[in-house]
């Protein structure tokens, strides 16, 4: 609406001055009833868009529980959680999810061993040490790395990391192995750890650093004994988020770590993860209502709960243990 139209709505015509009392101005300035109605409708529409996110969460929880409950009606819940045999796609299927969990954990833990030190060191470098020129190069590299689709990391793991590095270094490594998948997952997560940790480090006030220098500390001592401890809550929260991301990572693992579901913690062997099983099953033909279809949702539910708890923990760490400066 233009200003003129606004004026007309308020009863102020050009040249004419029809204003009489203050009350009339007030009445003219408040919107007309049809306007009021449309304002209300717009308000409700916006609210509906906002609540859509709540319905998404409800939808996820509903659909996962709904199918998982059907699954546990046929299969024992205890056997699911404690069994180590996962032969869902075979003739007489067994559903011991620990087989998938061992693969998932092996890869997530190894990926963290890559992502946490490199990510944190990059964050310290970016926030404390890097001169502007180096920073201007390293920052975009991080963003680029963060923007690369995971299937590309999967290709990298299968066609480069495995044949050119892992199988050269370790004799027993297979064509599919958890190690190269884990390294690729770790590289993929470096930007996440680095950028969140860097934010935490940047939030530490300058005065703390100057105080340390004033006491005669070297730059490294200042960084490691003052700055990093002050930012610890944000840094640890970034680690937890990274673990959650590693658990949920799918395509790298599907491509590079093979499709054998078994209780095995050897990184040089192949091994399927929870996400890997889901993709493998859906790449074939699963029909709705079958026990395999339902098992996918049971695995999905477990994955959802693990990542959900990790995300909550990360939030709690940030909120409870944050050192508030200012």
């Amino acid at each position, binding site marked *: *609406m233009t*200003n003129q139209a606004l004026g007309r*709505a*308020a009863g102020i015509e050009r040249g004419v001055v029809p204003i009489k009392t203050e009350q009339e101005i007030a009445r003219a*300035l408040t919107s007309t009833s049809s306007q009021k109605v449309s*304002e209300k409708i717009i*308000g409700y*529409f916006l609210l509906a*868009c*906002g*609540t859509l*996110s709540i319905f*998404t*969460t409800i*939808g*996820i929880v509903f*659909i*996962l529980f709904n*199918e998982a409950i059907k699954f546990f009606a046929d299969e024992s819940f205890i056997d699911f959680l404690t069994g180590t045999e996962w032969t869902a796609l075979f003739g007489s299927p067994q559903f011991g999810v620990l087989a998938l969990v061992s693969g998932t954990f092996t890869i997530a833990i190894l990926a963290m061993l890559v992502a946490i*030190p*490199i990510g944190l*060191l*990059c964050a310290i*470098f970016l926030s404390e040490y*890097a*001169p502007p020129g*180096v920073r201007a190069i390293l920052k975009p*590299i*991080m963003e*680029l790395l963060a*923007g*690369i*689709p*995971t*299937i*590309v990391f*999967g*290709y*990298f793991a299968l066609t*480069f990391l495995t044949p050119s590095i892992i199988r050269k270094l370790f004799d027993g490594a297979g064509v599919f192995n958890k190690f190269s998948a884990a390294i690729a997952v770790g590289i993929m997560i*470096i930007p996440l750890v680095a950028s969140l940790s860097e934010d935490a480090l940047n939030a530490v006030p300058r005065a703390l650093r100057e105080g340390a220098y004033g006491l005669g500390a*070297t*730059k*490294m*001592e200042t960084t490691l004994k003052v700055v990093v401890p002050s930012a610890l809550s944000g840094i640890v929260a970034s680690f937890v988020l990274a673990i959650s991301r590693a658990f949920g*990572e*799918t*395509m790298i693992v*599907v*491509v590079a770590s093979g499709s054998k579901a078994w209780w095995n913690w050897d990184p040089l062997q192949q091994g399927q993860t929870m*996400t890997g099983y*889901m*993709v493998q099953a*859906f790449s074939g033909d699963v029909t709705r209502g079958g026990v395999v279809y339902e098992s996918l*949702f049971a695995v*999905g539910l477990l994955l*959802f709960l693990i*990542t*959900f708890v990790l*995300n909550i923990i990360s939030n709690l760490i940030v909120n409870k243990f944050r050192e508030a400066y200012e």
Partner: protein
Amino acid sequence: MSAITAPGAAGQAPDISTNAQQRARFRRGNIFVALLGIAALLTFASLVTLLWTTAADGYSRLSWDLLTNMPTASARRVNDAGLSSALWGTIWVIGLTAIIAFPVGTCAAVYLEEYGPKNRFTRLMQINIANLAGVPSIVYGLLGLGIFAEIFALGRSVITGALTMAILILPIIIIASREAIRSVPPSLREAGYGLGATKWQVTWSHVLPSALPGILTGTILALSRAIGESAPLIVAGAVPTLLFRPQGLESTYSALPVQIYDWISRPQKEFHELAAAGIIVLLLVLIVMNSAAIIIRQRFSSKLKG
């Protein structure tokens, strides 16, 4: 490495330190700087290696035919294989995702920033959105399959894929749009209210135009994340090696990363080269989109300043 060491050394000014202990402390500092440099170099090296090996594997398969031919699963016809159905599937799905997610995400952000009362419910929505951003993408695939494909009976169609993707990237769009709306100075709103405009008039004619570059940038970045996602689409019903392009909303479809995955999972080397070529195409699409986002951000930010 000397360029990296310099600022550390300069900050230390070790004039007084002559004893051995002091020197050892600085030596440790230099080792630490070297470690930091190694970490940064490792990150840089992995990115370069990743891009280089993929480009080296795939460039010989790059051709116009790759974009216009249909894919194949037969090793004998691998030289004629292309990405046509996958490319068009991605265009359909991501186009629809944009049409759905952009308005809904913007509206949700407007609600949270401008309309929502500061109460528990609004706070719950915010926490919920932050949590949704951390849900693994494959779980969204299960949501799409269970709700859109089965309960809404949309089947494994383009529209199911697009709805799934839209739900997946909504949290990202909302978070970015809120940031953009929050950075609109309050004086702009007050000027609007001062003229007697209603809340929606202020939002529509003052707040949204100023926040638009930020919202668009966030949306494009979210869409480029969606383009690279394969897991949710595989779960929600995308099919690799399809011999036709999408015919409409109800059509079966393929997508670029899904096709790439299919080729990677075949043992023959020729298919791996095709996959690498597909990755190059995918990365080029992403580069174009990210450049668009950067250009929008820069053009509009300079306009606002001038």
